[in-house]
């Protein structure tokens, strides 16, 4: 297994929103999806996923419904609400700004300051 980065505090929710935005998914599926879309580079503490999911649902970013999984088991599927979509857009933007700024800062050479 390649070396994996652990998720920065606060970014787990953003990743969840992104994963769910690709289509309704159950908890385990969301975990797999995050791993897959990050190119297996991010590792998530599995249990920690659920408090985050509950918080997002409580805040009205996600909706949940019981459905049937691929292997025919009952599972709880999460979907993005309009509020969640808005938050994903806003946070993506601010993340990009933040990441670009940090990247620029880190590329600085002696004498530039």
């Amino acid at each position, binding site marked *: 297994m390649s070396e994996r980065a652990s998720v920065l505090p606060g970014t787990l929710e953003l990743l969840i929103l992104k994963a769910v935005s690709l289509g309704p998914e159950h908890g385990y599926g969301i975990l797999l999806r995050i791993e897959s879309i990050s190119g297996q580079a991010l590792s998530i503490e599995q249990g920690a996923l*659920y408090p985050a999911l509950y918080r997002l649902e409580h805040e009205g970013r996600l909706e949940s419904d019981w459905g049937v999984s691929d292997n025919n088991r009952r599972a709880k599927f999460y979907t993005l609400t309009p509020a969640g979509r808005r938050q994903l857009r806003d946070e993506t933007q601010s993340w990009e700004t933040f990441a670009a700024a940090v990247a620029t800062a880190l590329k600085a050479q002696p004498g530039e300051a």
Partner: protein
Amino acid sequence: MLARVGHWLRGVLRRRRLEREMTEEIAFHIAARAEELRRRGLAAHDALRLARIEFGAVERYKEECRESLGLRLLDELRADLRFAVRQLLRARAFSLATIAILAVAIGAGTALFSTADAVLLRLLPVERPQELRRLAWVDTERSRFRGSYQGSMHAWPGGRLATSFAYPVYEHLRGRSASFSELVTFSEASQLNLSLDGHARLARGQLVSGNFMRALGTEALLGRVLSPEDDSRKALAYAAVLGHSFWQRELGGDQGVLGRTLRVNRGTAVVVGVLPRGACGVDPAWCPDLMLPMAMQPVVDAGPDVLANPRRWGFQVMGRLRPGVSDEAARAETEHLVTEAIRAAEPAEAWDPPRVLLLPGGHGLQDLRSDLEMPLRVLAAAVAAVLLVACANIAGLLLARASERRREIAARLALGASRFRVVRQLLTESLLLAAVGGALGVLLAYLVGDGVSRIFLGDERPLGVEIALGARVLAFAFALLGLVGVGFGMLPALRATRLDLLSSLRATGTAERTSLVAGKVLIGLQVALSLALVAGSLLFVRTLVNLHAQALGFRPENLLVFQLDPTLNGYRESRLFDFHEQVLQRLQALPGVRSASMSRWGLLAGSRTRDGLGPPGADRLGVDVHYVAPRFFETLGFPLLAGRDFAWSDREGAAGVVIVNETLARRLSPGQSPLGQMLVAEDAPLAVVGVVGDTKFASIREPVRPTAYYPFRQSRQRSMTYAVRSELTRSALVPAIERAVREVDPNVPLYAIATQQQRIGETTRNERLFALLVSGFAVLALALAGVGVYGTLAYQVSRRTPEIGLRIALGARGNHVVRLVVREATLPVGLGVAAGIAVAFAAGRLVESLLFGTTSRDPSAFAAACVALALCAALAAALPAWQATRIAPMRALRQD
């Protein structure tokens, strides 16, 4: 936000389903993970195990999920409550005692507050009450523009504050005032002989100007209210509006009452409406049975037409201030108009124009407030003291209990519970106690209802305000119990959680002195407040005893009194005198009656007539005046010292005569007999024909005043108070008297029937109640303080058992052990007594005016209170001390 609340509520309400789904969701996750791991080649058993490990601590994440939903606080609260209930059930005696104490204290507090709320705080239930102003003026020596005055007067700088005006003055004001949008007048018609369908009853009514109800925004429940058109002599039939409680009580809430004709004294009126509940005009002290237009005054009231008489001041006036008009502008204008009106009738400048004042009218007339304010204050102070004692007491008990629970609390702290968490848990217990006690207290207050005002005012007439447990009262009760719960719970909770973990877990018998200090402070507080209450109750008891020990000057036993007012039936002048004379002669002839007589007010009935009397050409003395029939002194039982009694021949047309009491005789002619002296009252000359002994007149509290007695036939009188001396019982006497009165006129009803002793009892009603209630509270506080001392000492004995056992084993004697225990209480009790004396001294000023024959610094009362406290504390300390001497050394030592 709304979605969040909805979601939270769903979580709260469908809790079980939420838990099930959470479990299922996590189970699905682990199963799915395990399946994948199996696909990657792991054995089924290992796959499941690894999946579980990868997931982490299920319960912790579940808890975090619940927290995400905002359910954690609720869960903890629920757990705390469940735990608290278990704890309290375990200490059943403690819980029951606490709840009972709190129920009584909070119940009393709430009942008092509901009365205060209705009487002192709440505005009248009328439209925009804050705009109402009551007109008043200052009566002085130079107020010679008025003749008779009817209504209350209060002490005021430079004279007396009067609130009644002459009707012509009111009319002048109403026609011209630019400051008031409405000006209304009203006067009490306290004795209405009312008959409907041939059934007669005595009712209390109010005469009001036609705009009265419009100005107050009163609407009718049935029919209509009175209008300005009703207030006219030209009205074909007078209109009457019934009060709600009268309508319910006397007419059974009959809807068909509209349009019926009432006989009211000598006139008739048609019922045009019924007022809604709580619409009682502007006097919170009483609710009129019916309201009649002012124009009916000559018909319902005896005497000549007073509406046209500018010298008869007997009408109260209220106004609604126009928006934007300042009080001072309105006052100045009113003063000017009042002076103008007086000048129209009294051209001679022998009088000074009155100074007019505007009083706030939003609370209605203030007489009830002044009647109830003092009792309420005193009782509120007493209840507050009891409540504080109860709090200190419960805090002490909780403190002891918390110490017993030290091991439990230490264990919880050691296992990582935060101190805040443990304090919260302990507070939940005390708040639960407070809540149960408070709920019972509110129930108690509900049952008491308007009892507080009733016992102070008597229940002859319904109050003009409703005393109910409204939102404000409930909020008060709630705040009170919250305060109490936190008040007695906080200290023990903080104390209990501040401990040295290690030593607590080991639970050695080493006494921790600091925790004992708090307990001692609480004991001191209880002792101090109890002492203040006990001293206060002694002062009130003493006042009562002093009042009853006052020499009355007459014999009140075997005297029955009642009133007759034939003027309501149209009797006037000599017909009126003849009526009274005939009734009296029939009464004197009744078998079993020793003698019978009458006077205007009777003795010690709280009312008086005042007059000026003196030798011609000299200054007149202010005297109390009695209008009496012959044999008055003999009937009431006080001596005729010189001269003669009145005879029936002392009547209108005959020479004016007067009998004086000793005090007046001394003032008129010191050192010699006043018999035969000529005096002047008003204009008529009077000859002194007799001297009688001194008696109390209007109230027991007052010293004997100079008093003059006139024959009743030589004055213009209305109702008279009869007094009948007889050994017969009241139930045998009253029917005989009623028969005798009926023989003279069947339509004149007897009223205010009572024994003279009952009358006197009425005048000391407040004193009796203070003595009773404050003593009750004092006993309660004393008992609580005793329990407090006992509890604290007993707890210390149980904790120091090993130490005491050791001492006994080493040869300590019984009295040494007793001293060891009692010593713990002497300092706090001693300090408490000292503080209590200080508190009682300070609070004494509050009740000074209520005392009689004693002062708020009466040393004997304080000494007695100290002795009571000391006895109580000694009694409370005796049992634990005795228990300490019975400690068996071996068993005590084994305990450690």
